[in-house]
């Protein structure tokens, strides 16, 4: 099993903060494609290309490997800090 953690807008869209998916060893982009198919509420955000992905709490690319037992997070653009008016 791979644990998928969802944050902020993604969690609100999915209605849950954690998903688990049965997946063989694959790449991040394979996993994202599978998630978009299984969770239509996330499809638009996943296809937007604006999400950041981490694997075991390190930033990952579309080509990064994912394997059974990993913790993957889908993260919208960050907005911590303050001090920047727009």
């Amino acid at each position, binding site marked *: 099993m791979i644990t998928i*953690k969802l*944050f*902020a*807008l993604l969690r*609100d869209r999915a209605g849950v903060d954690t998903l688990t998916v049965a997946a063989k060893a694959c790449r991040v982009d394979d996993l994202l494609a599978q998630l978009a198919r299984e969770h239509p509420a996330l499809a638009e955000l996943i296809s937007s290309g*604006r999400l*950041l992905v*981490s694997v075991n*709490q390190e*930033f990952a690319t579309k080509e990064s490997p994912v394997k059974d037992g990993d913790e993957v*997070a889908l*993260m*919208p*653009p*960050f*907005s*911590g*800090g*303050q*001090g*920047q*008016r*727009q």
Partner: protein
Amino acid sequence: MSVRIQKEPFSIDDEIAKIKKTSTSIGAVVSFLGTTRDLSRSKAVSRLEFEHYPGMAEKKLEEIRLRAIRDFGVINVAILHRVGVLPVGENIVLILVAAGHRDEAFRACRFCIDELKRITPIWKKETTTEGEVWVEEHP
């Protein structure tokens, strides 16, 4: 702990006293404090909520802290960020950089807040007159 994510308010005097105790060579402390404003994109903000990725957020802040110490030659760095529901006007984030010289302290502090915004998984939800929105800043 020189990196903290917490719901509670922090005291800048207390944090400065702590960092000063870590070395007797400190001549300058430069700090950045981010506070919530009452306006965001010209709309009145009534409520703010911050959320983080527990574990990864602290890890990124500690990476930023260590890089600042190493790359700028400063003596010590502390980074605090609050999460949860925060009233308008509250202090959100504090970066303290203690150094021998002011030049490196200013540059390291600026680096830390820029990096915090760039690589730390923290998100802000604003409630304005037009509803709730997860903010996406483009630093």
